[in-house]
């Protein structure tokens, strides 16, 4: 009897609670942080209050400084990802499809992959100076490898039974790629892209902090010189939000493109 009463109650609670639960800890932390600042437990030179950071954000938005730096950072990030991801995809594609290419390229690519791309910063600055191409190249190099590895792996591990099925049904090379190989590799490719998004932001922050005259990383670095704590924190928050947004975009792409994995009763 008790069970049958408790069950519907549990169900009614489940939806809003599961939606809100992830936000609980961040909200409590920010509230606690605000209270601690207001009561003077936290010196503003150590950590300014959330309200002060928000205030700073509004001012910088009104002055146009934040939007300007944000858009230049976004521009670098997207262009770098498009170039690096594009190259990574093409290399992964040809190496996944052709054994000759794999033998020719793969071990060299793996060798380059083992160099941490941030170690190339001095070299790239020497070659390209501190202009746009330097930062875009760094992002491109950083994002290329995760996309490459996952595309390569995704394509070369397509179920051979399905390929044989395609052969027995005499699919053309084109059909074979678009109907079988690409859809089969897509989940793995998307994993690579999601990973590349993370690398993209980290690379950009470091590059902009070290050498730039614009961008969020520059803003943070510049604020540090002026001991402008609010702006430093603001930049960190902006990064966190950007990272979260790109993750959400990647996730919604996945559920859109991989509808077949989630439709129906499959719970794999």
């Amino acid at each position: 009897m008790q069970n049958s009463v408790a069950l519907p109650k549990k169900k009614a609670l489940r939806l809003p609670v599961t939606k809100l639960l992830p936000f609980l800890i961040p909200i409590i932390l920010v509230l606690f942080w605000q209270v601690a600042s207001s009561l003077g437990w936290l010196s503003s030179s150590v950590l300014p209050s959330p309200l002060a950071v928000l205030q700073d954000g509004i001012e910088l938005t009104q002055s146009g400084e934040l939007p300007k730096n944000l858009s230049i950072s976004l521009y670098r990030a997207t262009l770098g990802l498009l170039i690096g991801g594009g190259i990574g995809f093409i290399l992964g594609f040809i190496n996944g499809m052709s054994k000759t290419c794999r033998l020719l390229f793969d071990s060299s690519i793996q060798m380059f992959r083992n160099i941490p791309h941030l170690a190339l910063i001095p070299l790239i600055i020497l070659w390209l100076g501190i202009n746009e191409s330097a930062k875009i190249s760094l992002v491109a190099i950083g994002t290329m490898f995760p996309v490459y590895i996952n595309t390569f792996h995704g394509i070369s591990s397509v179920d051979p039974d399905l390929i044989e099925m395609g052969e027995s049904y005499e699919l053309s090379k084109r059909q074979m790629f678009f109907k079988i190989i690409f859809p089969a590799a897509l989940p793995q490719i998307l994993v690579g892209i999601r990973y590349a998004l993370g690398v993209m932001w980290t690379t950009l922050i470091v590059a902009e902090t070290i050498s730039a005259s614009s961008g969020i990383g520059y803003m943070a670095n510049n604020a540090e010189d002026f001991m402008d704590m609010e702006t430093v924190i603001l930049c960190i928050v902006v990064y966190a939000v950007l990272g979260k947004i790109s993750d959400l975009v990647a996730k919604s792409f996945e559920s859109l493109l991989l509808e077949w994995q989630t439709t129906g009763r499959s719970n794999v």
Partner: protein
Amino acid sequence: MTEEMIQVKNVNKMYQDLTALQNVSLDIKKGEFIALVGMSGGGKSTLLRLIAGLEKPTTGSIKVNGDNSKSIMRMMFQEDRLLPWMNVLDNLSFGSKDKNTKAHAQELLELVELGDYADHFPNQLSGGQKQRVALARALMTNPEVLLLDEPLGALDALTRRKMQDLILSVCEKQNLTTILVTHDVEEAARMADRIVVMKNSTNYYEETCPKKRNAGQIGIVADRVLGEILGEKEAQMQTA
């Protein structure tokens, strides 16, 4: 022109130093229904894949309809091999936008009694439903030769029986030349015109089935075939 649809002549197939098939010869007439039975690992799938042109024999020759033409043959594999990212209709038409292709696919779905499932994904189907989709797909291009590699192995007895009748009626209606690989001697005795027992890579035994048969005759044929397979096994055990 001979009336032989499939001619397998002195075929050997080696995988490295493993002999999967040794000196196999088999002639199959147009419209004939052959059942291929035998021990697991006896080379049944291998022979089917060779006939389908998915692999080349090490030596010997295989002729289908005079030469080796893939397009008149369709194979149904041991697993359903449906594409999980396409719905049932697209699995038949491979996503072709052609209206006629889609209409034909829908017709075949009706034939296998899955007319209402066109927009389902494979992971929404039961094992038997998936096999029926795979059968419909094999019939898409109006093949003349149907190669079936244990297509009913994973089904329950009832669904299995229904699928057997479905396959038989399709093969008869379209006068298909059919090779059915199965480990079920009853199934072979029920469906085939001729049963080929692959005892091992070198040893073959053939059994011709009566045209119209009742349960008793099926049982007799099945027993004889089983005896042939097991007899070989017992002989092996004695030498071991």
